[in-house]
């Protein structure tokens, strides 16, 4: 790899770290200005003033914000997020379990949806403006337009309640085998695939069509290559950057944006965990989860950029 390319990548990495640091400040500041009192939220309506006062002192809510930020950041870098205010559980342990579940679901949704989206995109280009293209576009637009909870409920009703092929509750735990887990998450995986498919498919189609106008494609065609070979061998490699970008965005969505799907399928992922703790003003957990979500976004986007840089022939072979 040429040295200036390495420099570009290093620059991008440094930018990522800086961005992460900035978002950590934002997360910490943001959680400080949430309305409501933590102690009141923890104890609920049936809290007595004494109980609230006792809890506030115990939580140490009276220290200055800057020292709390530094302490928190230092701990977080070492993987120590402290303990939850509400139930005293170790945040690192709880989150790693939840994050593992979220990644498990996201992984299987990605394994199905990414290749499918790209394949459908290629087929759409191959049969551009003919019925397969139209059908693929119409179907994928329809699935992205219907809210995910509607798709979820419809599938749940027919597949789980009427046919009873898979459970309507996607609760997974350690005592289940991989096959049991996969059966359990079948419905959310299908729903998530529907949600992210259209975006990636249409970007693939648009990016490749863009390249298809280039003169070298004509050369390839004149060589006598089949239409599909032209698309996969010549057009696709040159449109990797925009496709990777949108794929990464959707992967990030699969990790951080699936609260609704988690709730309706009772999946023990990060989203519900975060929502519960926001509602109870459990600041340390909200901060930890916010930091993890921010890292996932920044990391995936950084990966997209770096792949884009490396895949760009003009950067790879400078004059």
């Amino acid at each position, binding site marked *: 790899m040429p040295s200036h390319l390495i420099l570009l990548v290093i620059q991008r990495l440094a930018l990522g770290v800086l961005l992460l640091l900035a978002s950590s400040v934002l997360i910490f500041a943001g959680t400080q200005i949430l*309305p*409501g*009192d933590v102690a*009141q*939220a*923890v*104890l*609920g*309506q*049936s*809290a*007595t*003033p*004494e*109980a609230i006062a*006792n*809890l506030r002192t115990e939580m140490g809510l009276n220290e200055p914000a800057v020292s709390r930020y530094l302490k928190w950041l230092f701990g977080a870098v070492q993987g120590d997020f402290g303990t*939850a205010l*509400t*139930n*005293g*559980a170790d945040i690192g342990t*709880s989150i790693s379990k939840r994050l593992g579940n979220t990644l498990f679901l996201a992984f299987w949704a990605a394994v199905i949806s990414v290749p499918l989206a790209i394949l459908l995109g290629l087929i759409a280009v191959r049969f551009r403006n003919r019925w397969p293209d139209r059908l693929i576009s119409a179907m994928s637009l329809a699935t992205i337009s219907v809210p995910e909870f509607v798709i979820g*409920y419809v599938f*749940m*009703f027919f597949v*789980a*309640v009427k046919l*009873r092929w898979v*459970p*309507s*509750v996607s*609760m997974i*735990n350690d005592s289940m085998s991989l096959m049991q887990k996969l059966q359990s998450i079948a419905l959310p995986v299908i729903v998530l695939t529907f949600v992210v498919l259209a975006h990636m498919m249409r970007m693939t189609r648009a990016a490749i069509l863009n390249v298809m106008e280039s003169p070298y494609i004509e050369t390839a065609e004149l060589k006598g290559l089949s239409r599909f070979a032209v698309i996969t061998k010549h057009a696709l490699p040159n449109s990797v950057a925009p496709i990777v970008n949108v794929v990464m965005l959707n992967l990030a969505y699969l990790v951080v944006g699936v609260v609704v799907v988690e*709730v*309706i*399928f*009772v999946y*023990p992922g990060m989203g*519900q*965990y975060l929502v*519960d*703790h*926001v*509602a*109870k003003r*459990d600041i340390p957990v909200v901060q930890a989860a916010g930091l993890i979500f921010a890292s996932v976004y920044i990391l995936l986007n950084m990966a997209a950029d770096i792949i884009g840089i490396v895949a760009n022939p003009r950067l790879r072979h400078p004059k």
Partner: protein
Amino acid sequence: MSDKLHNYVWKFTSKKLSRRSVLARASALAMFAAVAGFSAVDSGFAAEPKKGGDFVMGLKGGESTNSLDPALSTSHVTAKALRTYGETLTEVSPDGEVIARLAESFSPRDGGKSWDFQIRKGVKFHNGQEMTAEDVLKTMQRHSDENTKSGALGIMRGIESMEVNGDTFTVHLSTPNADLPFLMSDYHLVIQPNGGLDDPGAGIATGPYKVTADEPGLRYKFEKFEDYWDDSRGHYDSVEIIVINDDTARANALQSGIVHAINLVSPKTAKLMARNPAVKIETTSGKGHYIFVMHVDTPPFDNKDLRMALKHAVNREELVDKVLAGYGKVGNDTPINEAYPLFDNTVPQRTFDLDKAKEYYEKSGHDGSPIILHVSDAAFAGALDAAQLFQQSANAAGIPLQLKPEPADGYWSEVWNKKPFAASYWGGRPVQDQMWSVGYLSTADWNDTRFKNAEFDAMLLEARAELDPEKRQETYGKMARLVREEGGLINPMFNQYIDGMATNVDGWATNPEGDMMNGFVAVKTWFE
């Protein structure tokens, strides 16, 4: 037995079952009858609990912030978990009587100023230790300590001192209280080894099931405790609670057979669900009420005529029909209904009366500026709808009622008990004394109507010390009338709890103390 057969035949003729399934079930029943013989039929086998099976509940009201520490329990799911793995000194039976559990018996001294609880012998904790009166004392100390975070602190306030003599646990009160045994049934007051001082959230107590998995906000798993002292309870091999907060997902889980019981069925869908032959709907007319509260010390609500105008302007019947879909009863601007012991049913029912509302409003001399009602669905399910109906009927009486929707997030800390007119709810308490004490006594922490009335306070203390039920009932009646006339409470409706059960679960007994048989569903039911 023949009733059951008859039932299937009826369903068949009304085309609810296919011919094949009728034959299959009829033959299964016949086979069972042959195996069980006549004795089962004679003794009515429905009353004979069967052992075994894995019971699964899908419950709303659990968060990943929950803890099994009884003191910290405020949500539906942990309350049910506590009833499943823990026990209290006393318990309120389905017909409203207080019965002894971990206390073998109890008796008052000095006119109710002191109470003796004989602690039951031979009861074991899940860790194998034997329960002693000392554990009881430590438990009560932990909940009544001034630095406690316990949700039961409010009801422990009247306790002056506690002591143990052998197997007797004695409570000394600052003023006599005839209801103390009722208070000891509170679900927070689960007896723990050493009072839970060592590890309050460990989930170790004396109940029929012991905790084997504790994943807050996700699931709890319990297994039968082999050394449990009472053979008439805890029939399942295992019990599981899955937290399903989404209403539709919970209903689907029951209908698809993944769970056997769900709580908080939405009133709008309860009747539809009941059509499913594998599901039955159980309703509990309890003490919970959906209300609007006015601060009687804040203008314009310090004007009694204006309060009366508003009280007459709410169409109670309509709210019960539309907001509760008929699953409830009209309220009478007091927090007490017939579900309470010593209820005075001679207090006249207040009805929707636009003319009276108009009359009172004119008499109040209100300047016509908007009267703001703060509301959010956090107050109760359907609060916004209820407030809109209230607004329409009030406007028809010429009262300038306006709504201010508030965010659900932070409603209990920022709006309720802060804004002078807001929607809210109460869950009810075992006895009248406690309900009045937590919400209507001048010094009450949650006096959310700012009702401060010396006459009322005096009557409350008088009734508390009175051991003669008839005299107490009379005093409670007077108090209800006083609050109904002078108070800031608009109580249009008492809601019902709606639970969904699989039809193969037997032993259901509605308990007005709370939903899911007051949380005892896993302890007292069995698979038929």
